[in-house]
């Protein structure tokens, strides 16, 4: 049934449909609306879940690690500083192979205090062993959240569903919300492969000396490597039931493109408009939307960019001392290819600054008119510094 809902609530609806058993969260803008609605669902009986109020995000994740170890379906949501506070437990959740699902609403890190969108918070957690899926709109946020439970419970890895602050989390859009029976058909109850059992007591995740630790890490990487295929299978099922699929990457008119814009999150929607306008002017431009960041979709990226001359990667994030994080990863994915496009890295929209069609067009023309990238990353739209007082 189609309803106009806020992006945050599209996620909440998916968690309701997934029949999560335990939800634990600590409020932080711009995430709060997600768990606010879920807490209402828990209190009015719409959702039969235990909602654990905790004193910090660290405790929220710790609580879910306990609950997931007991073999139930778990969910949390956070942003920015809250995600940073969870950091050590993100490693734990992945290493313990717990299928926790988290909605991560991208928000810039302080200081200065900034509640607006930026991807540095989630990308800073790239090495924790969490699957990361970036969403473009409210419908995708709902669909991805529902899929995330099945993905997590198949590969035994936690999944982060990532969405932009405000542009997505606080924007109302028409969203097709599945009926509960349909959702149940897609997502069966969680049957854990291992769980705490008082009848057969055991301790989880104690000492792992050098003779076993490396194999455990490899097992986690094997699971990561399988995740893209598993996601593909899950999307097959989802498409059959609901008629929608997204893919780890989405390529738009890339086959004949000289220049491909590479985007993630809501910038993708704006880029679709720019693409249409440029194509109308006869420009041979394509668009590659990166949905999966972990695992990194090496094969799909290489396939869709094989014929392009240049990639213009738009990063709403930054790694200080290096560059835009998507651009870095894309360069490293392509560097061993005999024939590869030039990678232009652009940094735009930090701290929620608007990335408009003009900004994206500017990026396109800069890329087209430059023989080589001006630097590791090119910052777009910086104001002239104010003269000293």
């Amino acid at each position, binding site marked *: 049934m189609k309803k106009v809902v806020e992006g945050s609530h599209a996620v909440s609806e998916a968690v309701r449909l997934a029949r999560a058993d335990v939800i634990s969260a600590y409020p932080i803008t711009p995430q709060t609306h997600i768990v606010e609605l879920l807490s209402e669902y828990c209190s009015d009986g719409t959702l039969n879940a235990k909602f654990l109020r905790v004193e910090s995000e660290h405790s929220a994740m710790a609580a879910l690690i306990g609950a997931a170890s007991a073999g139930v379906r778990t969910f949390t949501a956070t942003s920015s500083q809250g995600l940073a506070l969870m950091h050590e437990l993100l490693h734990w959740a992945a*290493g*313990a*192979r717990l299928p926790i699902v988290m909605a991560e609403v991208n928000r810039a890190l302080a200081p200065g205090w900034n509640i607006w969108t930026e991807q540095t918070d989630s990308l800073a957690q790239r090495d924790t062993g969490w699957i990361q899926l970036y969403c473009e709109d409210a419908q995708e946020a709902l669909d991805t959240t529902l899929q995330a439970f099945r993905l997590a419970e*198949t*590969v*035994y890895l936690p999944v982060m569903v990532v969405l932009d602050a405000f542009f997505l989390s606080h924007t109302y859009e028409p969203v097709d919300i599945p009926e509960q029976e349909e959702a149940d058909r897609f997502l069966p109850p969680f049957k854990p*492969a*291992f769980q705490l059992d008082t009848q*057969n*007591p*055991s*301790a*989880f*995740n*104690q*000492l*792992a000396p050098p003779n*076993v630790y490396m*194999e*455990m890490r490899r*097992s*986690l990487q*094997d*699971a990561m490597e*399988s995740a893209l*295929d*598993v996601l593909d299978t899950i999307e097959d099922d989802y498409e059959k039931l609901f008629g929608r699929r997204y893919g780890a990457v989405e390529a738009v008119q890339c086959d004949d493109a000289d220049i491909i814009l590479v985007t993630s999150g809501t910038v993708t929607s704006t880029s679709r408009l720019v693409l249409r306008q440029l194509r109308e002017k006869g420009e041979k431009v394509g668009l590659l939307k990166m949905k999966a960041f972990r695992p990194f979709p090496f094969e799909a990226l290489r396939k869709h960019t094989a014929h392009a001359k240049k990639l213009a990667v738009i990063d709403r994030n930054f790694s200080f001392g290096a560059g835009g994080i998507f651009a870095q990863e894309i360069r490293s994915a392509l560097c061993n290819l005999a024939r590869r496009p030039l990678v232009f890295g652009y940094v735009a929209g930090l701290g929620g600054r608007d990335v408009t069609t003009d900004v994206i067009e500017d990026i396109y023309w800069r890329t087209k008119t430059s023989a080589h990238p001006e630097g590791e990353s090119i910052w777009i739209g910086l104001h002239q510094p104010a003269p000293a007082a």
Partner: protein
Amino acid sequence: MTEQMLSPIVPTPLIPRSFTTTESNKTGSWRFLKPRYDEKTAPCSAACPAGEDIARVEMLVAQGLFKEAWETILQENPFPAVCGRVCFHPCEGVCNRKEFDDAIAIHTLERFVADTAMRYGIQPDIARRPVQGPRVAVVGSGPSGLAAAYFLARLGYTCDVFEAKSEPGGILRWGIPLYRLPVNVLEWEIGRIRSLGVEIHCNHRVSSDFLRDAGDRYQAVFIGCGHHRNVDLGIPGENLDGVEEGLPFLERVRAGERPDLSGAVAIIGGGNTAVDVSRCALRLGAKPVIVYRRRRQDMPAFEHEIEMALEEGVELMELWAPLEIAPHADGYRLVLQKMEVAAEEGPRAQVRPVPGETREMVVSKVLKAIGNAAEEAWMEPPEGDGKLLRLANTALVRRDDGPVLVYGGDLAALEKSVAHAVASGKEAAMALDTYFQDGWDAIESKVSACRVGQGPSLSMEMYLGGERCRRNPHVVAFQEINTDYFLFSPRLAQPRLLKEERIQGFSEIDLKISAALALREAERCFNCGICNQCDNCRLFCPDLAVCRDDNPQGRRINYDYCKGCGVCVVECPRNAMALEQD
């Protein structure tokens, strides 16, 4: 490792998993600090002359165990209904809660548990020793004599109490006005002492001959006949007809007489008797004026009694000393000398006359209440006797030719108060029991072993080897309370008769409180130093090393696994634990 394969393309999750018990890892061996339960002494209980276990009493009230709370008081004091009304409650002055918001209304709760027992006719379950050989005579049935008889009877001794007046109670019956202590309350408390087998012989005035011959029947005599001789002013006219002494006046009123007073009545003195006399005179129609040679802050009377008197309409003239009382057509002409403060040393200011400054006032009556002393010389403890043993609130004399004499109550106590009289009776009972069991030389050490905190208050429960012996004498300070666990909460407001209602007669001023109010007030108590089973130690232990147990503490620490982190000690809200070098 799990055995189940999920799907052909998904590898099996590999995680560390152990099926052996973690109990083999005795983390207690890492410990260098050791927590233990260490119940301490609450400041209120150390300040209570009767050594009542107040922190525990409030805990029991908060748990709704009113009978147990009452019995806990009765361990140390036979008069909770009386003391809940008339005691000057030094306990509240040192209450740690005072540093946080307001002291606990301890006296109100004491009265509440006693009144509840009275209302439902409950009998206390308090252990008594089997009957012992020695018999003890008690001279005077005031609070010290009755307390001595009560504690001695519990220790198994047969006691005969001799009272000169027609009914027992001493100052409680004849000196404290009804608006502070209704007579049925006193009779209920005395009845309980009688039910222990104590015989009270009224209208039986004891003389010095009695002491001489007492050895025939008694192995000890407790002398607690109080101070009933009035101290003279030493001024002309003080023996004029109608110039009356304070205590006999109170006694007349208490006996039911209602002398018709009107106009200004002068009360000379600054003690509790002076204040009580003034308030009675007010109720009888007079305009009382207390004339005191020092200032209000120097008055020995309890401050809250002075405040109530002034509120009711009693006038206070400070720094005026009487010079002469003379007859006058309208009653008496009182000549007063203006005084001034000469020195502030000591508990009361030293004053001297201001030369040439006098005044006169005409009053319809003069009441003298400047103090009392023992009536006869034999009632005073002998000075310089080699066989005299002075304890905090008693003096014992061993004689070659007769029973041991114990001087108590006002005759020997640190202060003249009901609570000190109770302390004196208890100390006498402990001393005599020790004397009978272990001899004279054992008295001092055995009595001092029962001190609450640093003393001088004593605990009968400790004397009898009860749980209280385990208490550390350290008195808990406010800084040792973990106030994170307490919310600000206003002190119980004592319901009282309105001023206008009070002065109409002799009805009790302080009204009873509901159980709901009592519970709320008791819950405010920090229970300094004593475990109220809050369970924080167990809940916070990161190693599950604090376990429930059947022992009196209710818990034990499993030192096989306690790492000595000290969380339990820090999270104990009331300093009932200690952390020490292992």
